[in-house]
């Protein structure tokens, strides 16, 4: 019996190796390099061999592993279970600890410019993940074009801030409103679609917005992008070393030395607050009738209709609110970068956010945080390996899907409870 299994697994891994060779051979193995101003193909067979061996051996062990798992079916898979149990029991404490850590983070000795930038980026993804979690995790609408709302938020923020000179706190809600309106705009045509069809149409919508931004030159400056987006100020106090005559700045007001980190730290707290607002809002609205209706719709739309729940309005609110938070995050992105162009809003961004939500465990707020740290962290760690980043990214997703097919944190908490004795 064991021999049979090994034989089968060997066959299987041989097959996997052949597929890997066919796939990676041309992609990785053949590199074009410029030599004496001509392009020549330089084979890199060693790397291909490594990848193929990795795939084949990996496949072999997966087979053995899943066989063993089948043998002890019924027993919970240990590590993942342990993690999610731990998070279930200590959830509140962990959340408080995590928030406390994020508050003191900028003052940690190691938190230099590099770490702060990563932290800000992660926090932005966490916020986007939480926003998209409403649409995908709660309402069950697989939206692959979420980056469109991020873009709408960024562009409306930039345009209002540049042309009218309004401050961040005025432009922010306007940008959210615009993004929310686009959410409804997308929502209407896709009301009747589910699953794959919905995914395809939302994906196309994301591309449409990007192409619109590329081509509407009068408004968006097309591929040149928008420059000179006002930097954020601390309630009217700018972060500038040499302010204009008679203008008080952050460092003069507080009697500090000028330090460019002050602005970074401010940005960090800004995105932290925005993300926490998103989180608090989602947690609260999930317990309201509309939130329960989202989840019910995800579970069974026909049953919802039979109970008089209006599926159209319910879906549209999910799209609109999810999009609104995407828009807020977009505003932040615009003010942080001071420059935006359609290049920042490609499909890969949507894909990463969807991956964050799905890998985190549909609907789980903590899951979003964990998978962001994991995925974005991974991309960052592999930054030096350039094109292998995405391979690592994909590999990580495959691993999570093998060990935790329903996401890192799949357990759902009821929105309302009767308690033990009613």
């Amino acid at each position, binding site marked *: 019996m064991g021999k049979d299994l090994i034989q089968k697994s060997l066959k299987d891994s041989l097959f996997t190796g052949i597929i890997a060779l066919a796939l990676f051979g041309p992609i990785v193995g053949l590199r074009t390099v410029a030599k004496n101003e001509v392009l020549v193909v330089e084979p890199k067979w060693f790397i291909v061999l490594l990848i193929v061996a990795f795939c084949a051996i990996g496949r072999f062990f997966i087979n053995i592993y899943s066989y063993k798992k089948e043998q002890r079916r019924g027993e919970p898979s240990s590590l993942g279970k342990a993690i999610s149990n731990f998070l279930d029991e200590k959830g509140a404490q962990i959340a408080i600890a995590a928030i406390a850590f994020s508050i003191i983070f900028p003052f940690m000795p190691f938190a230099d410019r590099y770490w702060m930038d990563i932290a800000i980026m992660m926090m932005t993804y966490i916020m986007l993940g939480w926003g998209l979690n409403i649409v995908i995790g709660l309402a069950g609408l697989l939206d692959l074009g979420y980056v469109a709302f991020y873009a709408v938020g960024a562009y409306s923020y930039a345009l209002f801030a540049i042309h009218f000179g309004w401050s961040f706190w005025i432009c922010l809600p306007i940008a959210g409103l615009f993004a929310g309106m686009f959410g409804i705009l997308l929502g209407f045509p896709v009301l009747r679609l589910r699953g794959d069809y919905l995914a395809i149409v939302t994906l196309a919508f994301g591309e449409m917005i990007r192409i619109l931004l590329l081509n509407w030159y009068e408004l968006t400056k097309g591929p040149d992008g928008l420059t000179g987006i006002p930097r954020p100020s601390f309630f009217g106090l700018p972060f500038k070393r040499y302010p204009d005559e008679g203008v008080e700045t952050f460092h003069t007001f507080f009697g500090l030395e000028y330090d460019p980190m002050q602005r970074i730290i401010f940005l960090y707290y800004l995105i932290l607050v925005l993300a926490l607002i998103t989180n608090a809002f989602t947690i609260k609205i999930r317990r309201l*009738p509309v939130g*329960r209706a989202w989840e019910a719709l995800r579970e*069974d739309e026909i049953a*919802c209709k*039979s*109970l008089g*729940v209006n599926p159209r309005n319910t879906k549209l609110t999910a799209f609109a609110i999810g999009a609104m938070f995407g828009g807020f995050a977009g505003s932040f992105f615009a003010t942080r970068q001071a420059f935006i162009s359609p290049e920042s809003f490609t499909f890969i961004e949507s894909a990463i956010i969807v991956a964050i939500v799905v890998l985190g465990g549909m609907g789980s707020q903590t899951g979003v945080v964990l998978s962001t740290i994991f995925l974005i962290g991974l991309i960052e760690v592999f930054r030096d390996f350039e094109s292998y980043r995405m391979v690592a990214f994909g590999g990580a997703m495959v691993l999570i899907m093998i060990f935790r097919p329903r996401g890192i944190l799949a357990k759902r908490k009821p929105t*309302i409870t009767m308690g033990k004795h*009613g």
Partner: protein
Amino acid sequence: MSETLLDVQNLTMKFGGLIAIDDLSFSAKKDHITSIIGPNGAGKTTVFNCLTGFYKATAGSMYLSKNNNKMDLKKFSDFKVAQKAGVARTFQNIRLFPQMSVLENMMVAQHNKLMTASGFSILGLINSKSYLQKEKEAMEISKYWLDIIGLTNRADDNAGDLPYGDQRKLEIVRAMCIEPHLLCLDEPAAGLNAKESAELNKLLKFIKNDKKTGILLIEHDMSVVMGISDHVVVLNYGKKIFEGTAKQTKNSPEVIEAYLGTED
């Protein structure tokens, strides 16, 4: 002589060339349990789907009398039949929200009134007293029904984890949470054992007598049909072949031939 609750006239439903319901007329009274029986594929579920707006009937009329007010059910589409006309239904293949708790299932059924109470979420977001009060009332209604079917101690468990019989009962009381005038049940006794089936009879009688809700019942289990029906409509190939009391139905030669089969 009690008043008519549902009046169906010349209902016809065609799927391409297939005539699933053929010129069907019947009525259901307010304090009655009206059963629709017939062999597989006779068109019973299709009647429900027309009544509850999931299908648009090809021809015919359906009127529901509500507080001396005749409502044309054809005017409402799916969710509005439940919301505006107060017609609730269950499904042949149970349709609960399996990953949500039992209590949550009951709360979703009270969605419309809670949505209004939550000021379309605004009052809810600021924890307004009036909303919290309404939420508490909704929980009490849920508890009331869960007590009746004996599921209160499982209120916080996932609906999908309940045993089959309990899921059936839960689907029925969940439908009752919308405070319907007419409750349409599609084979509620399917898959129940004798004890559960007896409990179901009791529950349906309670809904009819104490809640004054008219019931339209599709059922294959003759012990249920004969035990509680006040009126029986028999369908075969989309046509009504017989209509009468349970006793008359049991003894009708046409019905025996088409459906019940010759008993020993």
